[in-house]
């Protein structure tokens, strides 16, 4: 894996580089960085560009990408922002340059809004068919209150099927309302896992990702359980011991993907969910990246990105970069 350009962290007179550690993870029952790299971790949920200073934030976060051995990140906001997905974004050009510079480590989804199906399809044409993006990111419509189960979504999903791309849908089940119920506290346009299940039944050929495990994973899993084309994402919700094993029991390991949700969430938080599970290395690799590579392979192939296809197919761990090495310093100096 190529070493990223990333800053050192200033701890005083001697800055620390991302591969320096004063603690050996193996001594604490954790995978070492080498072992994390060997898992081939693909981050399905990366908010590196979600900031008023997106480039600065992205570069800063690379320290942690490198440190935690993340192989590839899928940025959720390429071409516009989650708040204003259809407005030209002043940082688009700089983000495109970074996507090209870091193409071995970074991919992107473009955000759309089902409140505006025509604009959404135009955006998919521009950023996926004719651009660098490899997937569609659904946010809830803030202007029209349209969730992902609304008929507005059908032209978007037909285009997704034609392009053979997956669709990521933000879902939550916020408790609230009167009487209180799961989902009763959702924003007007915020999709529930039940909304996603309705959409999935209409488009069983399109791989869909149920973002944030539906917010409430115990209920989210139940909602999408019958829909074989829906994968469950572990990202952006609190870590609960046992959640991954529960999802495997109900959905099967081939329907789980992992996301870091950084930098607002910790890779530590999200990795811990999967490492908590008593499962085989092969199953861990599926969750950490194998399943996402499987659904991404068609779009990599369609784009003629031979390297991308190799990336998706190759399940062997990459050789370590000889120039950049991991150093565990003594904790007892």
């Amino acid at each position, binding site marked *: 894996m190529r070493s990223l350009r990333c800053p050192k*962290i200033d701890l005083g007179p001697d800055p*620390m580089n991302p591969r*320096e550690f*004063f*603690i*050996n993870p193996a*001594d604490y029952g954790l995978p070492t960085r080498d072992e994390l790299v060997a898992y081939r971790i693909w981050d399905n949920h990366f908010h590196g560009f979600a900031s008023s200073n997106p480039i600065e934030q992205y570069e800063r976060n690379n320290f942690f990408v490198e440190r935690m051995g993340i192989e590839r990140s899928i940025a959720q906001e390429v071409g516009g922002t989650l708040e204003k997905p259809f407005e030209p974004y002043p940082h688009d050009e700089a983000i495109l340059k970074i996507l090209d510079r870091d193409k071995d480590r970074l991919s992107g989804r473009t955000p759309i809004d089902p409140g505006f199906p025509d604009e959404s399809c135009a955006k998919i044409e521009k950023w996926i068919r004719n651009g660098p993006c490899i997937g569609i990111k659904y946010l809830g419509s803030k202007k029209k209150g349209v969730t992902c189960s609304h008929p507005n979504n059908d032209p978007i999903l037909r285009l997704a099927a034609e392009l053979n791309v997956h669709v990521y849908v933000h879902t939550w089940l916020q408790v609230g309302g009167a009487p209180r119920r799961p989902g009763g506290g959702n924003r007007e346009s915020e999709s529930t896992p039940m909304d996603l299940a309705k959409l999935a039944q209409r488009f069983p050929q399109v791989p869909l990702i149920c973002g944030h495990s539906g917010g409430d994973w115990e209920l989210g899993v139940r909602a999408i359980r019958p829909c074989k084309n829906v994968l469950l994402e572990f990202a952006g919700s609190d870590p609960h011991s046992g959640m991954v094993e529960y999802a495997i029991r109900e959905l099967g390991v081939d329907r789980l993907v992992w996301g870091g949700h950084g930098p607002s969430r*910790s890779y530590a938080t999200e990795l811990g969910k999967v490492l*908590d599970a008593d499962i085989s290395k092969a199953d861990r690799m599926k969750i950490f990246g194998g399943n996402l590579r499987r659904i991404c392979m068609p779009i990599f192939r369609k784009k003629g990105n031979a390297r991308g296809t190799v990336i998706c197919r190759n399940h062997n761990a990459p050789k370590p970069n000889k120039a950049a090495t991991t150093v565990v310093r003594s904790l007892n100096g």
Partner: protein
Amino acid sequence: MQPPDRRNFLKNSLLSAAAALVPSGQLWAAQSASRRARSGSSARSPGIIDTNVNLFDWPFRALKYRDTKALVAKLKKHRIVEAWAGSFEALLSKDLNGVNARLAAECREHGPKFLIPFGSVNLAWPDWEEDVRRCHEIHRMPGLRIYPGYQPFDLDHPALETLVRMTAKRGLILQVVFAMEDPRVHHPLIDVRPVTFAPLVKTAKRAPHAKVELLHFPGQIRGDDLNHLKEFLALPNTVLDISRLEGNGAIARMLGSIQGLPSARVPADRIAFGSHAPFCPVETALLKLIESPLDASQLHAIMRDNARRLLPRA
């Protein structure tokens, strides 16, 4: 905090010295060799004091490590050498004495000198002062844990100052839990209000030597709460645990080591390891130690020394 002399650490590390001498391609082998010698290095790696675990059943789900024996084995597997244990039963029970007695017995049976019981009192129940006395004098507990919100009071409760003074006088540690889980996924039948921090800061200032730890305190705070946190942690015996510090490099960010990000600039001697197990995976808290760029002195402080300062005995 003085910048650590990190070059000395490097000099004293056999592994790093070996790494400097071998061609770069062999460094990975050197590291692997180090991992193979796990038992040797484990003997030198410091154990961790986990200041935030709970025993028994979480009321809303059967947790993976709800069995105390299994939890103890899990914690020991990750080199936890001591765990300060509260009880999930304290959230909703009225008979707190029964809760505390069961907690003390469970710790004795499954983790003598490993599980350290932290009983609870509920300021909303009558005669809670007697529960303080029993925790201290009968159950020999070194501290108490309160769960505002689940227990029906907030930190502006008029009895809080009495509790803080009582614990200070008895030399007990008072742990204040700010949340158990994301309120967005609460069971619909419960309506737990957010805990307000400011009144605790005022109260703690009036008993400045009280030992108080914040558990599962949100790290991503701004504005007034950020200032309150600075004021609170300026007191001599106050700490917060890492279980709810969120965001890449969250501990380093809390310390102020990551340039360009807002920080409470909390000194490393005010942060303690806490996993919130078995509700959260213990791996999550451990990985935060790895993820954040922390030097040896910071790690020692967070993993063990700060907790040991509050509770000197093993």
